[in-house]
């Protein structure tokens, strides 16, 4: 399987603050790969590197066999498309206009749209079921509709690599499912997707593989079942969770229960007492009814 996106030994720092260190992985065709990790673990930075917005300090990113550094902005945009968490637009472009913006890398400065552009736009509208919205403006749409339009814009770009940064963060459950099923369907047609996502249950449900980042390093990489484990969640997300494999669903059930105390913080203080549920069954002496909180 040839890799569409290949990240090898990438290290990146903002000025003096190290963000990513020695990140290596590759994504093949027809693969949805989830990117999970706590806030500040480097997920967004990794996506920005893949988009060419930032340049790696060390190591290399390749899209479809070409190093990103060797590509112009427009050439790179023919390979990678991006869907952010939310899009705000104050000026009233119609949905069709916004989807047509995906053709930007394929058009010269004064070149009008060709039939091929028109076909790509129509296909993107159909694939995301947004044809009916085509003449509405972006502001009139609900969050779920707007996100579908932004996905359509990315599809119209006809890039092989979809990069999504928390695409479902502002959606209700039905729209979250709808969005990720769309992404999955598109990817099955021969593309690949790298999705940064906070919702571990959704990640487990839709991703073929998952990359877990912690403090800028890849700490786990594999199938959802291999990566999303109680031990990993406790160690890297600092949460206590239940994870169950459901054979008849063919999926994981993830039940986050309570946060664990931060490393480096005092385990117990008057102002920041440990959550009784968090520590209840891990360390019984902090549980409800324990005597350690009483004054001598």
């Amino acid at each position, binding site marked *: 399987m040839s890799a569409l996106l290949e990240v090898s030994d990438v290290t990146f720092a903002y*000025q003096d603050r190290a963000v990513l260190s020695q990140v290596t992985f590759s994504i093949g065709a027809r693969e949805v790969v989830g990117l999970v990790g706590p806030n500040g673990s480097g997920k967004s930075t990794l996506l920005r590197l893949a*988009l*060419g*917005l930032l340049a790696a300090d060390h190591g290399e990113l390749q899209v479809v066999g070409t190093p990103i550094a060797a590509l*112009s*902005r*427009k*050439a*790179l*945009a*023919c390979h*990678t*498309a*991006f869907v*952010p968490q939310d*899009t*705000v*637009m*104050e*000026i*009233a*472009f119609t949905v069709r*206009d*916004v989807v047509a*913006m*995906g053709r*930007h*890398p394929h*058009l010269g*400065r*004064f070149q009008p749209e060709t039939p091929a552009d028109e076909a790509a736009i129509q296909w993107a509208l159909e694939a995301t079921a947004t044809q009916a919205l085509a003449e509405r403006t972006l502001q009139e749409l609900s969050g779920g509709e707007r996100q579908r339009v932004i996905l359509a*814009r*990315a599809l119209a*770009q006809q890039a092989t690599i979809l*990069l999504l940064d928390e695409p479902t963060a502002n959606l209700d459950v039905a729209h979250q499912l709808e969005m990720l099923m769309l992404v999955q369907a598109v990817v099955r047609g021969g593309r690949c997707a790298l999705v940064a996502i906070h919702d571990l249950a959704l990640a487990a449900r839709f991703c073929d593989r998952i990359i877990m980042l912690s403090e800028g390093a890849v700490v786990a990489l594999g199938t959802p079942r291999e990566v999303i484990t109680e031990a990993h969640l406790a160690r890297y997300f600092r949460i206590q969770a239940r994870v169950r494999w459901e054979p008849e669903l063919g999926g994981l059930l993830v039940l986050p229960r309570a946060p664990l105390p931060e490393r480096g913080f005092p385990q117990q203080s008057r102002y920041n007492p440990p959550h009784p549920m968090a520590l209840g069954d891990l360390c019984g002496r902090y549980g409800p009814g324990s005597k350690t909180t009483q004054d001598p």
Partner: protein
Amino acid sequence: MRRRQRVLACALAMLGLVAAVLAGTTYGAVSIPWRHLVGILAHAAGLPVTPDWPTWEAAVLLHVRLPRVLVGLCVGGGLALCGAALQALFRNPLADPGVLGVSSGAALGAVIALYLGLAAHSVWPLPILACGSAGLTAFVVYGIATRRGQTPIGTLLLAGVAVGSLNAALTSFVLSLSLANFDIGRQLILWLLGGLDGRTWEHVKLVAPVTLLAAGLIIAYARDLDVLLLGDVHAASVGVDVVRVRRVLIIATSLVTGVGVAVSGVIGFVGLIIPHILRRLIGPHHQWLLPLALVVGAAFLVFADCLARALIAPEELRLGVLTALIGAPFFLFLLLRHRREGLL
């Protein structure tokens, strides 16, 4: 339907432009019949026409009215075009050419030229000093807002407001110094109120090439501006070199604004009103919006100039006062509509 609207708008805009030129050249303290207008222009262009008009008409038209109208066209068109481009660049529908402090920078330079008496000897020192200080302002604002190669829009706007206020304060300072000298004080105030009176071919030579070149450059970035409205990351992800586009457009709009202020004083709100009306009529696509803003802005300012001459004739209302009287209520209207639509 959109397409028909656009073609119609283009036709109307061109018609408006022709009407504005006709009105601007024929209307005035003395009227020039438009038959003479055509004859004088043809004669001046070297065509074989026998003069059947009084010579003073030719003199008034060629040396007073025509430069005045041409400067008006360039300044109006330039301001409207810059307004449209900056509103997209800053993703802020209330941005206008004054927003980066460039206008106030140009005003400061001009006021200094007037105060030092440099402007009395030749027409060049004032525009040159005005352009210079406009450029310096743009450079300083951009420099303050840029850190590690990134120029966040919010910081840029704040820096523009801050440096603009400093420019305004320094302008007031020069003004207060010159209060003792009635003549200079009067000149300064007249200039600060903005107007097209007494413009010469020298002014046209300064403002026309700069405005047309920069306008061409800005219009070449029309499609990038469309995409920039979705946000920087979106724009970059479809292949727009955001940093470069922003730098080029800020330089181009600063040049146009600086040169415009240098030849006509402070004329506000054109860059705010025209793009907004046009967006309502033809939609937000910059491939249409930018060229139309250029044409409509040009026509608008020349008409406004006629109005300023007519309203309190034989006196002239200052053009900057008139555009502010039209523009400020319009600005408020925009603000209120924005609030109603929940955008502010």
